[in-house]
């Protein structure tokens, strides 16, 4: 990676507290996101991943340090888009209406809006459901609409907060590969929050591992796996297993370092626990 490129997002010594300082959510967080980079934030529940996304989106402000997006403090708007864990569609608007809604926030004309909304629905395979209401769709389809809505505004930065966590394994697999294809075509920067270590390795170019109470950076890992990954599934590669073992080792260190054991066990219920019991 070329280190001389101006970072798109830059966090410097960011600290954030809630409840008049009683809850320390984030402490001394610094990292950069390069243009077009796919970066994952991984860490146990409550370590401040959602808070970090909110800070980058400009929905809340920092207490200490600074966040900048394209050289300026972030403002919610044209360059940023968020995909949430639940789709958060407006239930009184149709599927196409939901996408047109965010396009209207960008000041697009009516004709342009519906044209682009339909195009995006086509891209996620839901053109036939344009006139349906959100409750008529399955969870996976709703999440697709959420993705289409975020892509419709053509953001420079796509923020994703555990977008696939609530979906079944099959849908998740399909949407992951769709996301990778979308990303390889458009090359916006993606900040992707997940609980799932495998998912983080599978998708991203870099992983920021966070530890809880207060949320701090534990390690930033480069993921050097061949691209494009939707074509060559890297999960069978030895490099993938190595990376996975390394990250789990770090998490077990976290446990040993005194972070609450039960919290971590709850936060990472994946097959690692199975492996152990199998032994």
């Amino acid at each position, binding site marked *: 990676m070329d280190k001389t490129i101006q970072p798109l997002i830059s966090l410097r010594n960011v600290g954030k507290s809630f409840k008049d300082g009683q809850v320390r959510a984030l402490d001394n967080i610094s990292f950069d996101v390069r243009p077009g980079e796919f970066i994952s934030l991984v860490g146990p529940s409550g370590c401040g991943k959602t808070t970090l996304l909110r800070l980058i989106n400009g*929905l809340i402000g920092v207490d200490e340090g600074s966040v900048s997006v394209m050289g300026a403090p972030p403002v*919610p708007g044209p360059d940023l888009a*968020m995909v949430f864990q639940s789709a*958060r569609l407006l239930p009184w608007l149709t599927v196409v209406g939901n996408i047109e809604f965010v396009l209207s926030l960008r000041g697009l004309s009516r004709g342009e809006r519906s044209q682009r909304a339909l195009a995006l629905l086509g891209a996620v395979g839901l053109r036939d459901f344009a006139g349906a*209401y959100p409750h*008529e769709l399955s969870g996976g389809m709703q999440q697709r609409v959420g993705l289409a809505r975020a892509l419709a505004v053509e953001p420079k930065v796509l923020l994703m907060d555990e977008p696939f966590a609530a979906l079944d394994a099959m849908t998740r697999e399909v949407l992951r590969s769709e996301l990778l294809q979308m990303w390889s075509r458009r090359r916006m920067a993606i900040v992707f929050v997940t609980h799932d270590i495998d998912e983080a390795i599978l998708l991203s170019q870099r992983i920021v591992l966070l530890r809880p109470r207060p949320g701090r950076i534990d390690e930033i890992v480069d993921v050097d796996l061949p691209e494009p990954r939707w074509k060559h599934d890297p999960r069978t590669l030895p490099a993938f297993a190595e990376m996975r073992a390394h990250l789990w080792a770090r998490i077990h260190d976290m446990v040993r370092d005194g972070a609450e054991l039960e919290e971590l066990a709850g936060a990472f219920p994946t097959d690692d626990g199975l492996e152990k019991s199998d032994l």
Partner: protein
Amino acid sequence: MTEELAKTPPTRPESSLSTAGGSKALPPAQLAGRARKRRRIERGVVLGSQITIALLVVAGMFALNAAAGKLIMPKPTDVLNQSIKMWADGTMIKALGQSVTVIGLGFLLSASTGILFGILLGGFRFLGRVFDPFVNAMNSTPGAAFIPLIIVWFGLYTEAKVVVVWNAAMFPILINTAAGIANSNKDLTEMARAFGAKRLTLFWKVMVPDALPSILSGLRIGAAIATVGTVISELTMAQSGLGGLLAAAGNRFQMDKYFAVVIVLMALGTSITALLRFAEHRIARWRVSLREGS
């Protein structure tokens, strides 16, 4: 929906796949036919029970009339005759017109002011907190308590009655609107904010539509109160409208006449409710189908 299903060709091209497993699945036309039949039977049973109950009520009236005399219960046939007479000579139409005027004006006033102030108090948390005790005090006081004051201020006629209705029906609408907006879905507002919605857009495009179900239930309560308030004001202020007819008939113990008016009031209340339900269907279609779907 069912018609659409029925129109789709019921037969599928024979394929090797649909021999063993496919034989169980019925063609859509047959499924739709079954559903239609079930619905028809259900509707028939419901309607039959309703007619039976209505006939029982009428029979009970006849029995009570025979046992206790026409002062306690008029003969249903007398009520019918009296109704025909009152509709024919125009008394009923005139009274209905007067009552509908008071209900309509009062309801329109309370709906517009209630929704307006509700939006303000629900949208600006500071205003909401300041006015909360006053709104609650007004809402908890029976509307009839203000009638003497309203008579002193506005007199006895239509405008004063409209004020009575307005005062009684506005607060439930206001409170429901304010609560709906104050409790609007935070996830949705955060979503809109994340995509760059400014305050006004957030308010009109997210919070108010989200509060619509709550506003509509406020309007339903308001309409019921407006009907009650109209009749009370017509009974207690200058006698007019259906309430006036009620009082006149009751005072003279003309129970057949009295019942004829009660029937009209029932019909009026029912049609107002039906009208609002229709409006809800039109305005919040997504929500209605959401409820039916679950």
